[in-house]
């Protein structure tokens, strides 16, 4: 560092912030997800609390340079515990005009805007739909704009690096520009950098010259920050005070995958996943297919029907059958779910919800499959439903689903969504003894004199015995035709059918006694308004509740993990408030259910924009309801 640079660095102000939201945005080929992930990794290592929200296009290669092809990654990090990936970015890194076009509307006045000026060519402006250069026509006047010739500086840095010049071509050099951006951002926020260099050398171990090109670009970005006068301030966000323990960062789909592996170990049953690729659920299939050493079998079927069919067949044979999909896949699986209800076999059905109907918005989030999970079958076919509330909670939700499925011999839905699936947060790792044991009782002896009656129920749980093929003397046939209560032989008797329909319903209803009561966070005890949520809206709702309370207003919060059956005290909780507000990323599905079930005149707040709620906006809605 030259004397002069040092001088500048000393003069520069370092501002302490309690939290920051940054967003990296570029073309889908620009490596923005990787950049965001790596910045997040640095941030996790530094000890901040954090929450991430990737946003990618549905097309793998949408036309380069078009707003439809923009890929974004948002990270919220802080010195205290946070609940959401943040409403609006404090800094936007725009690698091209399309990224600016797609995200400028999200940027509050005064925010930092870092743009790659090299990409603002006539052609790119046109592809993005700009008729004039937004950097000069006043479009960005409200922001603190940092114009950085990112591409050319990257190429220069790569060409100047030892042993790299000549070994990589121009295109490869240019590709490293995302690392230049990462370097600059790492400098701006005082992030640790050794991890990134190690990461790059590992990632490109097979092509060391590419690794060095990227490291050179990364360092150049960092050094550029030091030397440029464009930035008068740098920012520090102190590590968060978090509970003691060992943490990792985890996304919802990864947590769910690990939860399923754990469920296999806790139940002692081999996991069998039957699945057909679909966004945003495919990553669970990818992940589980890696873990054969746990005895996990994965089967990529010819369609969703075969995926769940194979899982159910495996359950019949004593495996923990699992199928993973999204809404359109659930539609195809409905008939088999009905069969599983009738066969009364354990099965875990994972629905990573996305925007619907039909193909809808494959890469965007929504909570609109609740009614489908609840009622989307012919006949009276009740299925328990569990919804995780955060990325790491997907781990526990998977274990809980397996517990209920095996204990009550029933298919169980897990309703996650695109936001949880791809979002990530720090996770305080559980220890082995914090995980529940899930004992499984397979039937090995006749249960009716010398006979085996496959539908003779446990009087407590109403679960039927599970006797798997290979068990001597218990040979039996089950099927989708109505069965006689007890013996399980085919029965067309009217009273028997009435009885069996009620028994199957009672079995699921009875689970309410086996799940925790609905907890209410009502610190003052004087709130008159309750906000009730489910699934991934937990973070934004809780953040909104904090804001409202910070203003001295009273509000109670409750969040449902079990949606079928509801916890036993749900009605009592809802009825003890004057008003119940139910924010959902659908048009009011939970609200309809609680109104029908508890005769509570719940108010809805509903959005289906493919994005999680913003805390500020929810806080406003809450205030309105409180002040009504």
């Amino acid at each position, binding site marked *: 560092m030259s004397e002069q640079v040092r001088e500048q660095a000393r003069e520069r102000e370092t501002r302490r912030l309690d939290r920051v939201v940054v967003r990296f945005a570029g073309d889908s080929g620009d490596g923005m997800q990787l950049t965001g992930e790596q910045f997040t990794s640095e941030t*996790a290592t530094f000890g901040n609390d954090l929450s991430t929200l990737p946003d990618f296009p549905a097309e793998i290669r949408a036309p380069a340079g078009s707003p439809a092809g923009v890929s974004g990654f948002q990270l919220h990090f802080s010195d205290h515990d946070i609940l959401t990936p943040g409403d609006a970015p404090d800094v936007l890194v725009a690698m091209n005009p399309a990224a600016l076009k797609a995200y400028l509307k999200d940027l509050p006045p005064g925010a930092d805007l870092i743009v790659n000026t090299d990409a603002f060519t006539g052609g790119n402006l046109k592809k993005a739909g700009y008729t004039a250069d937004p950097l000069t026509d006043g479009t960005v006047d409200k922001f603190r704009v940092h114009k950085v010739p990112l591409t050319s500086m990257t190429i220069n840095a790569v060409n100047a690096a030892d042993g790299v010049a000549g070994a990589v071509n121009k295109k490869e050099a240019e590709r490293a520009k995302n690392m230049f951006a990462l370097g600059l951002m790492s400098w701006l926020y005082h992030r640790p950098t050794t991890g990134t260099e190690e990461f790059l050398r590992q990632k490109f171990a097979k092509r060391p010259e590419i690794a060095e090109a990227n490291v050179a670009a990364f360092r150049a970005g960092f050094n550029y920050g030091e030397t440029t006068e464009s930035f008068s301030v740098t920012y520090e966000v102190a590590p968060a005070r978090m509970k003691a323990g060992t943490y990792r960062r*985890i996304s919802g789909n990864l947590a769910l995958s690990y939860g399923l592996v754990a469920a296999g170990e806790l139940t002692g049953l*081999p996991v069998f996943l*039957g699945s057909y690729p679909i966004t945003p659920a495919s990553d669970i299939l990818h992940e589980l297919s890696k*873990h*054969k050493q746990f005895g996990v*079998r994965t*089967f990529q079927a010819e369609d969703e029907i075969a995926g769940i069919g194979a899982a159910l067949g495996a359950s*019949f044979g004593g495996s923990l059958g699992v199928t993973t999909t999204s809404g359109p896949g659930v539609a195809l699986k409905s008939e088999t779910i009905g069969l599983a209800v009738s066969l009364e076999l354990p099965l875990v059905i994972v629905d990573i919800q996305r925007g619907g109907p039909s193909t809808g918005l494959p890469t965007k989030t929504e909570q609109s499959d609740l009614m489908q999970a609840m009622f989307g079958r012919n006949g009276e076919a009740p299925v328990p439903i569990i919804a995780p509330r955060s990325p790491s909670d997907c781990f526990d939700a998977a274990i809980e689903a397996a517990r209920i499925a095996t204990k009550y011999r029933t298919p169980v839905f897990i309703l996650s969504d695109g936001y949880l699936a791809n979002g990530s947060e720090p996770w305080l790792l559980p220890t082995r003894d914090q995980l529940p044991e899930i004992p499984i009782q397979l039937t090995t002896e006749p249960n009716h004199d010398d006979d085996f009656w496959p539908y003779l129920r446990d009087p407590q749980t109403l679960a039927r015995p599970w006797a798997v*093929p290979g068990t001597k003397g218990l040979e039996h046939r089950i099927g989708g035709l109505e069965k006689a209560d007890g013996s399980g032989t085919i029965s067309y008797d009217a009273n028997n059918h009435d009885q069996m329909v009620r028994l199957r319903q009672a079995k699921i209803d009875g689970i309410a006694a086996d799940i925790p009561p609905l907890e209410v966070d009502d610190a003052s005890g004087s709130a008159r308004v309750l906000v009730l949520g489910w699934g991934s809206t937990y973070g934004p709702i809780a953040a909104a509740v904090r804001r409202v309370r910070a203003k001295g207003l009273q509000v109670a919060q409750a969040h449902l993990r079990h949606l079928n059956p509801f916890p036993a005290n749900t009605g009592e909780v809802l009825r003890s408030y004057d008003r119940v507000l139910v924010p959902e990323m659908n048009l009011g599905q939970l609200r309809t259910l609680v109104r029908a079930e508890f005769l509570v005149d719940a108010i809805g707040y509903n959005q289906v924009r493919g994005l999680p709620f913003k805390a500020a906006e929810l806080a406003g809605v809450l205030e309105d309801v409180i002040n009504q």
Partner: protein
Amino acid sequence: MTVTTNGKVGGGRVTNRLLDLVPAAPGPQSRKDFASDQEVRWCPGCGDYAILSTVQGFLPELGVARENIVFISGIGCSSRFPYYLQTYGMHSIHGRAPAIATGLATSRPDLSVWVITGDGDSLSIGGNHLLHALRRNVNIKILMFNNRIYGLTKGQYSPTSEIGKITKSTPHGSLDRPYNPTSLTLGAEATFVARSVDSDRQHLTSVLRAAAEHPGAAFVEIFQNCNIFNDGAFDTMKDRDTRDDVTLRLQHGQPLAFGADGSKAIRRGADGSLEVGAAGDAGVLVHDAHAVDPSQQFALSRLTGDTHGVTPIGVFRDVDVPSYDEELNAQIDRAKQRQGDGNLMSLVAGKETWTIS
């Protein structure tokens, strides 16, 4: 790929490397051991009775413990079959039995898994699953009862009904061209394809035995008479006076000859397709069920009573390639050998953790 001939064990227990993973019966079994206490409810005279009786007669020969046998069916008259067998069984949903059986067979190599299906069940609604189970070569034995009609729903035409079929749903005659199930399954890369007839106990038993001996997916089409909605569909192949002249009994390694006096034979025509000639002709073909290349087996599947005046029965194709289930289980074994049994907590922790004290 190595292709071996399946060793047949004369008279005794049926065996192959996959069946060897299934526990053997502790002692001799009889047909009675395989009859359940359920009242059989097909129409009197239905061909399904004969098939049931033949299967019950064959299962003792399979020689595996009864509790390790599972029959899985779809929906249809034929799919009631599992209820009548004293084995494990599942009467599932329309068309999906091959998928369900795939999950069971791949997760339980110690079971002998059979699928019972109809022409509508396997070729209409379940066509996709049938093709994929066969191409994957999952170790399941699929018995398809082809009565060329929808029996259970009371007589609509099926994907194997002949063009112009008058049924309740086609009063002016059906328009769609039928599938040839053996051609279809050979085209789907099936490793074992055979055909038999409900009333020919001896032949059907021999085909069941060959299917059981095949280490992988087996597809067996069984011509089955529905005496209520499609009576007599296979009569010429059953009638004593005509059957030998219209039926070609395929036997591996034997010349393709047929006819009451053995005077007719199959040879290759000028355009490469097969044709019927005289037994003494030059170029009479010899059947090779174990040929890896399916061309001649496929050509045989194109012979039908309507087009050539002769229908082949027996084993068209029987080649030994690794089955999906043994390969999947081998991957698991290899992973365990290489990495040891998985350690849950180290998996969950991953590579990047940090500790806050």
